[in-house]
C-alpha cells in the first residue's frame, strides 16, 4: 500500500490545474463507486474504464494499451481510493485559486505537454537555488507559485506545504531514494514479466479445455495450447497462420513485439527503473 501511494508521487510533477482536475476527477469517481451496489461500478471497474483514458500511453497502439493495462488499472484504483490522502496537501493551496492563477499562463503548454513531454525534467538536478527562492513565496500568494510552474513544476507544487525548506529537501531526497527504485522498479518488473499479471487478467474467461466436440485427442491438445495463446491479448496479430498472410503484411501484427519493448517508455507518467536511477545519480552528482 505504501509503495502504491508513493509511486503516485508523480502527481506532484503535475501543474496545479492538472492536479486540481485529477483531484476533482478522482473524488467524483470515489463518489460514483460509493453507489457500486447499484451501478456495479466498483473502484476496480472504474479504474479499468477510466485508467486508460487518464494515464494515456504516448503511442496509442493496442500493444501499449494492453501492455500497461494492469499497471494503469492499479494506479487508477489507488488514485480513486486514496484521493483524500494524496491530495490532502492541497488544503494549503486551494484548487480554485491555483486554477485561476495557472490557467492563463499554462493553458497552451500543458495541453500539449501532458502527453508528449519527455521525462527529461526528472533528471534535472535539483538546484539548491530554487529552494532558496521558495521562502519568499508565501502561501497567501498563489499567483507567485504559478509562475515557476512553467519551468520547475515539481518544486512549485511542493513549496506551499514545505515550511521547513532545508529539512524538506533532505527528506525529499530520501523519499526519492527510497521510493523510486522500489516502487517504480516494481512497476517495471511487473511489466517486463508482465505475463503473470496479464494472464491472470485474461485467463478469467478461459474456455475450459474440455471441448464439447468429440474430436480426436490431438486436436483437443492443440486446442488446449491454443487457448493459452489466444488468451494473450495479442492473439490475433500474433497468429502465425498462413491464412493471415495478406493481413500480416499490413504491419499490425509485426509491430507487436517491437511495440512491446518500447511500451513502458511510452508511458511518460510512469517512471521506469532506469529513469529513476538516472535521476538519483544526477541528484547525487
Amino acid at each position, binding site marked *: 500500500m505504501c509503495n502504491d501511494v508513493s509511486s503516485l508521487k508523480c502527481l506532484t510533477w503535475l501543474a496545479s490545474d492538472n492536479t486540481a482536475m485529477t483531484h476533482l476527477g478522482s473524488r467524483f469517481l470515489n463518489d460514483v463507486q460509493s453507489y457500486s451496489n447499484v451501478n*456495479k*461500478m466498483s473502484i476496480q*471497474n472504474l479504474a*479499468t*474504464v477510466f485508467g*486508460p*483514458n487518464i494515464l494515456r500511453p504516448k503511442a*496509442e*497502439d*493496442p500493444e501499449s*494499451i*494492453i501492455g500497461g*493495462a494492469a499497471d494503469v488499472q492499479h494506479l487508477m484504483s489507488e488514485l480513486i481510493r486514496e484521493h483524500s490522502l494524496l491530495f490532502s496537501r492541497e488544503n494549503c493551496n486551494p484548487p480554485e485559486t491555483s486554477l485561476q492563477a495557472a490557467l492563463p499562463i499554462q493553458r497552451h503548454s500543458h495541453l500539449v505537454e501532458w502527453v508528449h513531454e519527455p521525462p527529461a525534467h526528472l533528471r534535472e538536478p535539483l538546484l539548491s537555488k530554487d529552494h532558496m527562492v521558495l521562502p519568499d513565496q508565501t502561501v497567501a500568494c498563489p499567483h507567485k507559485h504559478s509562475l515557476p510552474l512553467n519551468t520547475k513544476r515539481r518544486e512549485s507544487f511542493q513549496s506551499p506545504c514545505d515550511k521547513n525548506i532545508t529539512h524538506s529537501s533532505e527528506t525529499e531526497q530520501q523519499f526519492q531514494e527510497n521510493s523510486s527504485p522500489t516502487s517504480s522498479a516494481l512497476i517495471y518488473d511487473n511489466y517486463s514479466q508482465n505475463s503473470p499479471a496479464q494472464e491472470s487478467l*485474461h485467463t*478469467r*474467461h478461459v*474456455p*475450459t479445455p474440455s*471441448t464439447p*466436440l468429440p*474430436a480426436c485427442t490431438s*486436436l483437443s491438445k492443440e*486446442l488446449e495450447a*491454443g*487457448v493459452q495463446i*489466444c*488468451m*494473450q*491479448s495479442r*492473439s*490475433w*496479430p500474433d497468429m502465425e*497462420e498462413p*491464412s493471415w498472410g495478406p*493481413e500480416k503484411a*499490413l504491419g*499490425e501484427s509485426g509491430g507487436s513485439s517491437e511495440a512491446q519493448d518500447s511500451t513502458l517508455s511510452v508511458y511518460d507518467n510512469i517512471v521506469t527503473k532506469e529513469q529513476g536511477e538516472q535521476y538519483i545519480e544526477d541528484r547525487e552528482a
Partner: protein
Amino acid sequence: MREYKLVVLGSGGVGKSALTVQFVQGIFVEKYDPTIEDSYRKNVCEFISLQCELIRLLIVCLQEQFTAMRDLYMKNGQGFALVYSITAQSTFNDLQDLREQILRVKDTEDVPMILVGNKCDLEDERVVGKEQGQNFARQWSNCAFLESSAKSKINVNEIFYDLVRQINRKTPVEKKRAKKKSNCILL
C-alpha cells in the same frame, strides 16, 4: 481448419462479454467486470456445408471507447456483431457511428454484420422496441437482426452462426480451391 475472426462491439455494459462467454463456455456471468479487450476461441462443427467441417471462431470483445484497438480489430475482423441493450436507448444510438466506422475501415458496404438487441429477458425494462431494431437493420442495407439474452440463453449461438454463414456467403470455401487450381493452368 478454417478460421473466422468475429468482433463483438457495442457500448459499455450491454453484455458483449456475457454473450460471448455464454456462447463459448455456456455460462452466464452475473458479475460486471468491464472488458478492455478479451479474446476467445472456440472450435465448432460447421453445419452449413454438407460435410461437418471443423471451424475455429476467434471472438474479440471490445469496449467501445478504446479507439486505437477498435481500428485494429475492425481491420482484421471478418464478421461483426453490434450489440445494444434493449434497456438503454443510448447504447442503441451509439451503434450508428460504429457501423459507419466499420464500413469506412473496410471500405465496402458489404460487411458480414449482425445487429443484436441484448437483454431481451428484461421485458419490463425495455426501452428500445423490437420494431426499432428491425427498422434500424433495414436501413443498414437489410443487415441481420436478432434479439438475444445471454442470461436466458436466447439466440446466443444464432448470432455467431449467422455471422459464419454470412462470411461463407461472401467468401465461399470453393473459391479458394478454384483459385489454387487456376494457378496451375496459368501456363
